[in-house]
């Protein structure tokens, strides 16, 4: 077992370093490392076909509970989290369909027009919209569209778009923490532990809402002097929101599918439909309502991210199967000395700090078995640990330019338009904002759950 443990840690470490170095595409890295885990850790190190089977977890998809849990039970999954993967692919297809018809651009332009193109009003509305959209849609897509429209509006209205983009990025990460379908860490956490959309919205959702109020206020006062319009503009010449719609029938159908997706997610604990089922259903509806565009939509799905997840789950399973994650859990238990407040604080803050510098998805995937073990050994409810982990990993990544994918995309869109954002400019407001949000989360969890 010692050999297997050493190999699993080595493979995991090499995987992380290679991901940071970006010499190879990250899905190649995780797939190869995943293969090495199967062969060297499970095969040579553990001589365990059972570990391989549990990790690949293909059998889980043939269990009724994977698709429909009518008796309130759920499958707690280990290894490859197929529910996450199927759900993410489903949402990607839906989002590509929505993007194709101009939904996101229309929404942004509509809201900007509603507030009469007043920059400070757009600033507040876009932050709230960013948070709301990120509750259901991946934050990369949200920021891609939002930042692009922000740049366009900044050219028309003659203002500096950087403060707006940075605030939108933060709010997207915050919104993603509110639900199970927002940020990938939450999707992984929710499907691993069998928590529903409602579970998240009633817990992390409340924390996120409180934090959002603080953050909108914070960013408004932090940036209000940077939101000055450089000269008067004639808003009658601006493009209309309707001009963003490229396919009216498709637009109506996309709106319907999006609303359906939200309803299904909110009610999935009652209906028993799993997120995998919802993912399949909404992707199917998106494709059959746009048959001529199926190749175009499917081509744009981010398969590399899906493959990245596949490999990642296998590598993390290597750490879990060899007991490494139990060692980490015991270590956290030991250093907290049984003090549950300290234990929760460690989870929130270590998750936040780690997520600020390394990709929060592998971190969350690694921490899931850790918090599960910790909850079992310490007596602290798993739910409490879950919310602490979710808030730490989702929001901690907002602190630095590299902490979360939304940050990277927002900075890239701004940079390509001639507004390069360095660490100093980014962190000046993002770090205090993250600290404030983490404090809110810590206090809330302490007061409400402990």
């Amino acid at each position, binding site marked *: 077992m010692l050999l297997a443990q050493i190999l699993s840690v080595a493979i995991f470490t090499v995987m992380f370093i290679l991901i940071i170095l970006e010499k190879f595409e990250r899905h190649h890295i995780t797939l190869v490392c995943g293969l090495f885990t199967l062969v060297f850790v499970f095969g040579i190190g553990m001589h365990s076909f059972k570990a391989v089977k549990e990790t690949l977890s293909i059998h889980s998809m043939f269990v009724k509970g994977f698709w429909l849990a009518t008796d309130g039970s759920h499958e707690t999954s280990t290894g490859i989290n197929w529910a996450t993967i199927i759900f993410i692919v489903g949402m990607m297809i839906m989002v590509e369909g929505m993007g194709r018809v101009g939904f996101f651009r229309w929404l942004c332009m509509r809201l900007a027009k509603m507030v009469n193109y007043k920059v400070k009003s757009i600033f507040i509305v876009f932050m709230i919209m960013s948070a709301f959209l990120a509750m259901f849609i991946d934050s*990369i897509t949200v920021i891609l569209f939002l930042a692009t429209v922000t740049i366009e509006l900044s050219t028309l209205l003659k203002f500096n778009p950087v403060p707006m983009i940075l605030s939108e990025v933060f709010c997207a990460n915050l919104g993603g923490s509110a639900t199970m379908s927002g940020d990938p860490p939450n999707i992984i956490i929710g499907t691993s532990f069998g928590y529903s959309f409602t579970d998240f919205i009633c817990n992390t959702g409340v924390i996120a809402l409180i934090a959002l109020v603080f953050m909108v206020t914070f960013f408004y006062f932090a940036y209000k002097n940077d939101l000055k319009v450089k000269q008067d503009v004639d808003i009658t010449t601006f493009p209309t929101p309707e001009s963003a719609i490229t396919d009216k029938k498709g637009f109506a159908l996309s709106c319907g599918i999006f609303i359906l997706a939200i309803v299904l997610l909110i009610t999935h604990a009652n209906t028993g439909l799993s997120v995998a089922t919802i993912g399949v259903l909404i992707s199917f509806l998106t494709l059959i309502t746009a048959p001529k565009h199926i190749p175009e939509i499917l081509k744009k799905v981010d398969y590399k991210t899906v493959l990245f997840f596949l490999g990642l789950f296998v590598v993390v399973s290597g750490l879990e199967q060899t007991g490494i994650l139990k060692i980490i859990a015991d270590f956290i238990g030991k250093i907290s000395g049984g003090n549950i407040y300290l234990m929760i604080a460690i989870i929130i803050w270590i998750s936040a700090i780690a997520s600020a510098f390394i990709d929060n998805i592998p971190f969350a995937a690694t921490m899931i078995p850790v918090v599960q073990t910790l909850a079992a050994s310490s007596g602290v409810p798993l739910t409490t640990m879950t919310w602490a982990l979710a808030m730490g990993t989702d929001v901690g990544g907002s602190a630095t*330019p590299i902490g979360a994918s939304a940050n990277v995309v927002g900075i890239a869109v701004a*940079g390509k338009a*001639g507004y390069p954002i*360095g*660490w100093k400019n980014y962190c000046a407001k993002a770090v205090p904002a993250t600290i404030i949000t983490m404090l809110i989360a810590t206090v809330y969890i302490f007061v409400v759950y402990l």
Partner: protein
Amino acid sequence: MNKQIIISIGREHGSAGHEIARLLAKKLNFPLYDKKFFTEIAHQNGLNINDIAKYDEVPRKYFFSRTVNGYSSSPEINVAELQFSLLKSRAADGDSFVVVGRCSDELLKSYPNFLSIFITADTKDKIQHIMQTKNLTESQAQKEIIKTDKARSVYHDYYCKSKWSECKTYDLTINASRLGIEGTTDFLFQFINQYFA
């Protein structure tokens, strides 16, 4: 010369490559695309010229940036790509110009009337040049040359398949110490006229 001609000048720090490029552009009556040009464009578009200048021809900081789906958080990469995009659009518009650095040797080599030149110089001349232009001591000048050339090499080789300063990367490599700044400019002017005649 009525046809489009693009001249790319790569240079070692201290070789007076930029000065030669400026004189050459003047003789050819072509615009010069250098740092000043890019910051002026930024200014015209209402962008912060200090931000653009700060990241101009600077290599990416490895551990301080990430790439997601082709989008990079590196301001150095984003400014570089903005400049590349501007150069490509000027070239596509049929403009003739002289461009200093910015991976133009590889970026624009598909254009039919394109010439890439690399300017080097003797080490002692480079040190002397930097000492005079930047008011540095010999030791400081030496360190600056090594540092700047290293940064240019890393920057160039990150975006290009070819290697910075390697002779096979360029159509012509010339040591400016042999003919001096004016002499090198005159030589290159004659070369260009003959080559594109």
